[in-house]
């Protein structure tokens, strides 16, 4: 168990390194002068050169990367060109907004998708279920930014129930959450249905029913208990992906999270800020994945971490 965790942490560090390195190289190859975004308007060539020297942008890329890595070990990801503050600090200020949104979205998803999927499995291949099935297909077929705009047009502009953008009060979280949840509910409920159909037809369920186990227990404790691992895995993966930035939804709703931050940083060629965002979100996403994997033995005592899964 301990070796398993250590191995996974080593993997996490390696993947984070991979992501950081590829972003680093891509950024250096990209056209556009980052010094220009730090400089005052209409800079002279001497000013630009001074800025490049200050941030080490005149060095060869391998040297820049080495400097970056050694500083990283001291917890220093660099100073944001745009905010002129430590990049890590800027990211950390935005992170709570993204986490709040991701948690709200995943909770709503789980609360709707699991009962919906179970209902669909119990009524598999009936007319109402076909309707729900088509509904979930429609749910995963709409562009998320478009769902966001339609919700804004209806609920913010026409009905005036919510502020059209940004973060004013806790009510502002409703529309972005719904936007994210529509797609996720569609995906997760279909997974729940597939798993539950397999378990509902399994012989062990017939045995349990013949022993007089109540229908509620049959469904939730027996069948769903055995469907839980893939469902929790999927929820965990989705949650981790959201931490990587619900970029589009944050842009649509001007939600002050890391996704919105990183899109602006890309446009301003704010290298340190992009690096910091990628690093923080990738590590966070990997930790969520690790936590989900550590839950497996709790859900299914047959699972021994690090043996069969290796």
């Amino acid at each position: 168990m301990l070796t398993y965790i250590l191995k996974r942490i080593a993997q996490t560090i390696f993947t984070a390194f991979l992501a950081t390195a590829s972003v680093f190289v891509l950024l250096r190859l990209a056209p556009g002068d980052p010094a220009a975004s730090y400089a005052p308007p209409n800079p002279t060539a001497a000013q630009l050169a001074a800025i490049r020297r200050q941030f080490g942008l005149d060095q060869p890329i391998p040297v820049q990367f080495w400097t970056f890595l050694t500083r990283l070990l001291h917890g220093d990801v660099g100073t944001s060109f745009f905010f002129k503050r430590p990049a890590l600090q800027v990211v950390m200020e935005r992170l709570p907004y993204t986490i709040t949104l991701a948690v709200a979205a995943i909770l709503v998803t789980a609360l709707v998708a699991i009962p919906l999927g179970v209902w669909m499995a119990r009524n598999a291949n009936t007319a109402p279920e076909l309707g729900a099935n088509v509904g979930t297909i429609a749910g995963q077929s709409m562009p998320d930014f478009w769902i966001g705009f339609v919700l804004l047009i209806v609920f913010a502009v026409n009905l005036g129930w919510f502020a059209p953008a940004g973060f004013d009060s806790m009510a502002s979280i409703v529309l972005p959450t719904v936007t994210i949840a529509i797609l996720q509910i569609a995906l997760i409920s279909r997974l729940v249905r597939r798993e539950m159909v397999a378990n509902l037809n399994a012989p062990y369920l017939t045995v349990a029913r013949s022993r007089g186990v109540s229908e509620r227990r049959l469904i939730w404790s027996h069948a769903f208990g055995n469907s839980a691992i893939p469902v929790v895995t999927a929820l965990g993966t989705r949650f981790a992906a959201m931490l990587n930035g619900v970029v589009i939804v944050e842009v649509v709703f001007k939600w002050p999270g890391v996704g919105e931050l990183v899109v602006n940083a890309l446009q301003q060629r704010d290298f340190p800020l992009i690096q910091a965002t990628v690093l923080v979100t990738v590590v966070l996403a990997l930790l969520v994945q690790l936590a989900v994997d550590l839950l497996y033995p709790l859900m299914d005592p047959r699972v021994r971490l690090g043996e069969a899964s290796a």
Partner: protein
Amino acid sequence: MTATAPANEAPVPMEDRASAVTARLRRRSAAARRARYSTIKIWVGAICAGVVVVPVALARVLPLPDPIVGKLTESSVPPLSPGHLLGTDPNGRDLLSRVLHGGQTSLIIGLLAIVVSGVVGIVAGAAAGYFGGWVDMVVSRLLEAQLSLPLLLMLLLVVGLFGPSIIVITAVIAFAQWPEPARITRALVLVEREKPYVAASRVLGLNRASIIARHVIPNILQQVLVVVLLLLAQAVLLESALSFLGAGVQRPYPTWGGIISDGRELFVLGKWWLVTVPGIVIALLVVGVNLLGDGLRDRTRRSKVAS
């Protein structure tokens, strides 16, 4: 008391009642119903997709106003106006024409992307599944690594780097999509390579490349192609998302995501059609492709069970 007992008894559930309908017949009827539903899905899907694809394919033939140069006298006309079925944008450009011409770009990118990702995915997945060993390890690690990277951000970076040409956007979408066919192909090939016909062709002295290409892949192609078809839906969505974030084919050439992105500041002013109409078109196409793929997948699964 005893006389009323039957009335108080809970009604016997349908499944447990003795009747001439045996469990076997009921299974058959469920299977028949499933088959019917998959046919319904295939037809509804084909119609939804066709409603979008056919006019888009004919966009250059249909008598439409120019999608790039508009008449400023007809600025922001609402839908269902004479001459402009879906209205116009603030530059007086006909929305129907823009949506259909934009659809050509979006569909070409989507089709090219799934061809590339399908070929790469099938080749990589088949090699990993058939050879195993270090080939499998390399492919599987690549798949895992890609899953843990912030994909959309990487795609935005690459488009920013190489410029938003059709080739770059296609490559980027194909890169995002190759894991799906690769994983499916690998799983199917793992099962397939243990079958007797593979051993037989090995005994006959065929080399490994031709066993994979001429014997294994044709046997799994049907199932993989359904997955690739479903990727078309994802490709169209991804392309529109990139366009929306400004990393799509550039103005003035219309794309679906671009039209929505242009309209986003305007719906506050009541010009709702610039956002809603292209979104409905995207959704219609993607629902169509998804339903079609889903129905076909149900059907291939069933024929596999039957055989």
